[in-house]
């Protein structure tokens, strides 16, 4: 007894150490929801500690709104005011679509670090790491979408759907961003470095965003391009958001938008999970 006591006195914390090491009952295992929420909490802490990552989420949408409204607005829709009416719901979709790519690069960075080993050696529901990270992104999407709406209101955007319409549109965008992010998480687990993820994500994002009805009505486009724009899930999302904000949304538009979300998840979530589980370093 005496010898043990002498030894632990030299240890950091001494008796506190022995006390802290003593065996105690194991808590009940974290359920999938709780584990996912814990990872979401982690994502929020990171935003709190490194807030500059939000800069992009705020600055780009504002830049796009101003640029397109005043530079192209008159040429496209007769006047910047008219264009704003059409374009503003779209720019919110654009903002969220651009922001969703962080999920992929963040995941990739995580995998390359030692913390990933700890997560994978814990007895938790494995998808919770991915699902939780995406839940944490809710804050980022909210910020990315609220700023252009506020700017639009200042510039004269008057949504006919009122506050409720805008709110519903923003809620739908959370669902859409969550669905779209699975493409980037797939790249996140597939590729080796964050810069490779970014390199592949950027052109695809560019095509998805510009090959859609976000910026202009596809009626003046050649037929083949219209065909592409009309299957693009971003177009379906933009149509729904526009409809919700202006109070003109149809059940068909909403149905198609949610179906696009479901298809994105169905196509990209399973391979992401498969590759994630197989990750070996």
């Amino acid at each position: 007894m005496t010898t043990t006591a002498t030894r632990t006195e030299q240890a950091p914390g001494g008796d506190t150490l022995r006390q802290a090491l003593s065996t105690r009952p194991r808590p009940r295992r974290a359920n999938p929801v709780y584990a996912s929420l814990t990872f979401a909490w982690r994502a929020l802490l990171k935003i709190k500690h490194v807030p500059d990552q939000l800069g992009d989420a705020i600055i780009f949408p504002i830049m796009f709104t101003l640029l397109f409204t005043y530079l192209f607005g008159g040429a496209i829709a007769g006047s910047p005011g008219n264009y704003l009416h059409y374009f503003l719901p779209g720019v919110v979709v654009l903002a969220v679509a651009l922001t969703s790519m962080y999920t992929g690069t963040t995941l990739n960075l995580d995998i390359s670090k030692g913390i990933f080993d700890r997560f994978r050696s814990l007895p938790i529901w494995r998808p919770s790491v991915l699902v939780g990270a995406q839940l944490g992104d809710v804050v980022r999407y909210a910020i990315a979408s609220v700023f252009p709406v506020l700017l639009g209101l200042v510039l004269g955007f008057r949504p006919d759907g009122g506050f409720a319409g805008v709110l519903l549109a923003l809620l739908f965008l959370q669902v859409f961003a969550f669905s779209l992010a699975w493409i980037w998480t797939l790249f996140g687990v597939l590729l080796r470095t964050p810069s490779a993820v970014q390199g592949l994500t950027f052109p695809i994002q560019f095509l998805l965003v510009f090959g859609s009805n976000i910026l202009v009505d596809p009626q003046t486009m050649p037929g083949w391009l219209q065909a592409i724009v009309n299957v693009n899930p971003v177009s379906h999302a933009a149509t729904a958001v526009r409809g919700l904000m202006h109070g003109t949304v149809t059940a068909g538009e909403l149905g198609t938008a949610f179906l696009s979300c479901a298809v994105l998840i169905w196509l990209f979530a399973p391979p992401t999970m498969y590759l994630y589980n197989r990750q070996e370093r």
Partner: protein
Amino acid sequence: MTSDSVLAIETSDLVKVYGETRAVDGIDLAVRTGAVYSVLGPNGAGKTTTIRMLATLLRPDSGSAKIFGHDVVTEADEVRSRISLTGQSTSVDEELTGLENLILVGRLLGYRHADAKARATELVQAFDLTEAANRLLKTYSGGERRRIDIAASIVVTPDLLFLDEPTTGLDPRSRAQVWDIIRAMVGEGTTVLLTTQYLEEADHLADRIALIDHGKVIAEGTPGELKASAGSGALHVGLVDPGQRAKAEKTLTTVLGVPVHRDSDPARLSARIFDPDRAAQALRELTGSGIEISDFALGQPSLDEVFLALTGRPAGDGTGTGTGREAATDKKEATV
């Protein structure tokens, strides 16, 4: 739950191959509960690959591994609820504070937030990290980082703790702190599997040691047994004039009848001895032939000498051992 009949770790012909390299090449281990077991070997011997398979992070290519009787592949979840891992690269989140890291792990293990926070606070106090608790991990020193990492592994006391080179790169004081923590943990009944390339570390901490090289166990036993396998002891001789070393080597070889090892210090020689009388005689011969001795020592062989005796080359000389860990490290560096 952990009856004495069940081994903490039992592997049979465990193999992991990376391309051409057999990083782990048929390892058999049997680790009793409640002990410190050290896997000792030079860089690239296959230590980390072995530990990663045991911690369910890597799937073995063949062979089997059981933790407390549970298979690491088919019963991975059951294994995960009994183990903790402190990896070679820091397994904590750089962008969170120390306290937040511990709360994170606590919550993932099932604690409610308040309980996780209480436990985290208790651990930072015990590990002498109270002052550092609210700083971001990236500002931590090597020793602080290592301690928070180990603390994260024992938020819930595991039955088996894997420590992959826990003191590599630490200053002597931090190393001593980590050793104290390990001893205290074992005192509380945790089984520890420790990899190290420091022979001294294995000697100090471990009840049993598996010496591995090129993915194979080349010797296994208590530190004492391993030392005995290198002869009954060793004679170390220091010379006043390094220029006389060749002459001294010749004399020693003749009298002792065994190969003499030239140390990296140009004024030193050592040789395994089987009979202390012979050693005395050898020393007399040296002084008799005009070679000035500055000091000599007769002792149990160090594990360094054991390694040399068993492999024909000094430990830490990772010649020609491409391994999984090195491959993995390369990949990791490429991804950062």
